[in-house]
């Protein structure tokens, strides 16, 4: 297990990352931070990694969220985990009221600071430090296996194995959306994302479903060829109907799948798709996608990838455990470089990022991606 370095070691590593990065193939001697130049994509120059030795309750981290107050929350295979101001990890488990130790998703109600936790056996609310479980038997939750959760206005949306549950916080009432009352082809939902006035549902075998709460109308975005074995043509719609995640920001809807990536520009109503080997996409197998501005962060089984649809920066781990960063920019040769640090593991399960940092959940620990500063030096990580 890779663990966090001490501050002094971190500083040394940061300096080394800037001075000693050597190109592996093709590319010029441009430092790794150059991926940020002329592109809206921030570039990670260094990873800090955290594992069970550092206090994580499990090697497997399923979800990560930096709350509005700056606190970092992790959903692991063995409880909800908070990174305290001193850097220590505090775990909340079933004894504290968590409905199941496996926390697959985390959402924050930014108005109240309440956290909503998607677990393998129900939804849990953390409010004022108190954990309250919502299950099939004590609430209107459609199914106890909750893959994702999102808080949109006064509604908590739960993506479950038997439909999408919508809890109205004003009157504590539930609605269930499935194939019988919506445009969902199947009831299985994987994730929910907030759009501009609409809600996007990532539906297993149903593509992406858009719901407009104002009109109550649904619209489905489906794979135009309707076949799992092929993608008939690129850029014509969702790459496939088996959706693993949806994310939305700045007018762009992203769909992650295990077959590739799709992007829908809502202002132009145009689709783009990417599959590995025909694009810089690291892997077709994308566990989920996180959107920040016009950029998508992709959690793949081969590492983390960030793209605006034109530029790409991919972070992977080679067979010797070294961090590899590949930068793709239109009209330029691909830059391939080693890093002095690497992701905790190549199997990435979830990502949270903003303009300053990225937190990357993996199947074997947590990585903190530290971005290059304006001058190419590492930005100061402000994690409490």
């Amino acid at each position: 297990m890779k663990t966090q370095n001490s501050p002094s070691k971190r500083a040394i590593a940061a300096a080394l990352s800037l001075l000693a990065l050597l190109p592996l193939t093709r590319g010029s001697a441009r430092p790794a931070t150059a991926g940020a130049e002329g592109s809206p994509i921030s570039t990670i120059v260094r990873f800090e990694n955290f594992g069970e030795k550092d206090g994580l309750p499990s090697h497997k981290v399923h979800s990560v969220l930096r709350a509005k107050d700056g606190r970092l929350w992790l959903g692991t295979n063995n409880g909800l985990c908070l990174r305290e101001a001193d850097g220590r990890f505090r775990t909340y488990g079933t004894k504290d009221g968590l409905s199941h130790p496996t926390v697959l998703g985390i959402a924050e109600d930014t108005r109240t600071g309440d956290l909503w936790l998607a677990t393998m056996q129900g939804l849990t609310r953390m409010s004022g430090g108190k954990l309250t479980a919502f299950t099939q038997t004590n609430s209107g939750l459609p199914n106890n296996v909750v893959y994702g959760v999102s808080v949109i206005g006064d509604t908590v949306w739960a993506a479950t194995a038997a439909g999408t549950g919508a809890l109205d916080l004003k009157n504590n009432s539930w609605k269930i959306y499935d194939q019988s009352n919506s445009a969902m082809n199947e009831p299985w939902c994987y994730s929910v994302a907030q759009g501009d006035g609409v809600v996007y549902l990532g539906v297993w075998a149903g593509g992406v479903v858009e719901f407009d709460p104002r009109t109550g109308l649904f619209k489905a975005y489906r794979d135009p060829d309707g076949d799992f074995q092929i993608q008939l043509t690129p850029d014509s719609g969702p790459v496939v109907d088996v959706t693993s995640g949806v994310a939305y920001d700045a007018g762009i809807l992203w769909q992650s799948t295990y077959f590739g990536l799709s992007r829908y520009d809502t202002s132009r109503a145009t689709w783009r798709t990417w599959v590995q080997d025909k694009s810089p996409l690291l892997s077709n197998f994308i566990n989920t996608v996180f959107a920040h501005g016009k950029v998508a962060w992709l959690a793949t089984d081969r590492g983390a990838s960030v793209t605006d649809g034109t530029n790409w920066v991919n972070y992977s781990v080679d067979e010797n455990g070294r961090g590899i960063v590949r930068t793709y920019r239109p009209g330029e040769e691909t830059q391939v470089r080693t890093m002095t640090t690497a992701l905790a593991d190549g199997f990435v399960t979830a990502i949270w990022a903003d303009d300053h940092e990225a937190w990357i959940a993996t199947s074997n620990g947590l990585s903190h991606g530290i971005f290059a500063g304006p001058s190419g030096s590492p930005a100061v990580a402000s994690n409490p």
Partner: protein
Amino acid sequence: MKIINLCLMALTAATPIGAVSAAAAGEAPGSTPTSSETQSLPLSAAESSRFIYGTPGEEYPTNGGIPKEFWPFSSIKPYEKFFVTRTPFRGPGRDYPPPPNLKSLRIGLIDSPKYGANWDRSERTRAGIVQAIEEANRQRLPGELPFELVEHEGVAQWGGAANLAALLADENVLGYLGMIDGTDAHVALRVTLKTEIVMVNTSDPDPSLTETRIPWLLRVLPDQRQEEAKLVDSIVNRCGCRRIAILRAGDRFARVGSHMFGDFVRRLGCPAVQELLFSPGATDISYQLAAIKEAQPDAIFFLGEPADIGLFVRKFRDAGVKARFFGTDLLLEDEFLKNAGAASEGMMFTCLFDPATKDPLWVDFVSRFKTRWGHEPDVYAAYAYDGAQIMLSAIRRAGPNRWRIRDLVCNLDYYRGVTGWMRFDGTGSNIAPVRMVRYEQGRPVFEAEPEFAPPVARHL
């Protein structure tokens, strides 16, 4: 939870642990995990003639290996073809230590809901699995851990199997089996990606189950795509029928099946002249009968529970319908003949393997099964037995490590079971050829088919 303490077989607690190579993890077809790569026990002499990992240079067939005339967009080169390689699992875990204080090697089973349409089939599935585990445990050497079946009855509710799959993870099973209903299997499969516990599905024929690219699944039952390609070939190409009607149940199983069947006949230039639904258990189908008769079909495809279909074919014959009748392998079940009576004459349907075969593996299995259960095994028991054998062998060789068990299950290319040779495609589904059967004087007559065997099997 019902835990059945069966007798026991398997491996020692000191099973070797190690990481597999990328090839063994399924990076490409033709990757043969050897004992040195997997740090797993090698195949025993008896197993080595039945398990084949990889055929070098070979690319997996797409579209379930069915003839190209049935493929969608077959005249267009697609931008991307999926499933020409097996989806690997690239996550960690193969070097994780075994669970502490292990007292048994747990295998999960999710049964069908009691009182549902599939309960009897689920019982037969269970019998095949129990038989395999009992036999394995009887061969256990001193000091080896026993296999233990952890069993849950299904829940007749959307998503119920997801809860059970999550529960099996909490109960520390190393893998799990079962699931006839396509909905159950789909929702459980989604959980397996999170829990990282391999599923060997023995009885769900929905083709889309394995087309989800979740690399924690192997299915041993040939699927509806295999069956209906064979059926349509028989109906159109062999029998020359051109006006084909469909009467099917209004459930998910029949929806998926009829959709595929409808596509296949359309691609052969014979779009269905009529497709009508019935409610499972319905007895009055006068409207459907009149409408289908009006369409003057020369072939009718019936899809649903065998008791319903038996009743309906009798009604259709009584009403003077002369069309040829076709159906699927479920019509081998007794309820069909009981209701159809003489109207079954000439009915043609698919069969996933030939239970009249004289293959010694099959004959010996039938004998053992009859001794244990007092009756002959059916298709569900047989495939469940084969699926359990694959799981048991993987656990025995890999040790109590779910990730290495996955590698040995999901990288399997061919398996020789009591149902014959299986071939697994890029989705992890058995695409061994199915055959046709027809009823003659109340008895099934199995059409002769060339025995399927992998080319490499000739060298074994």
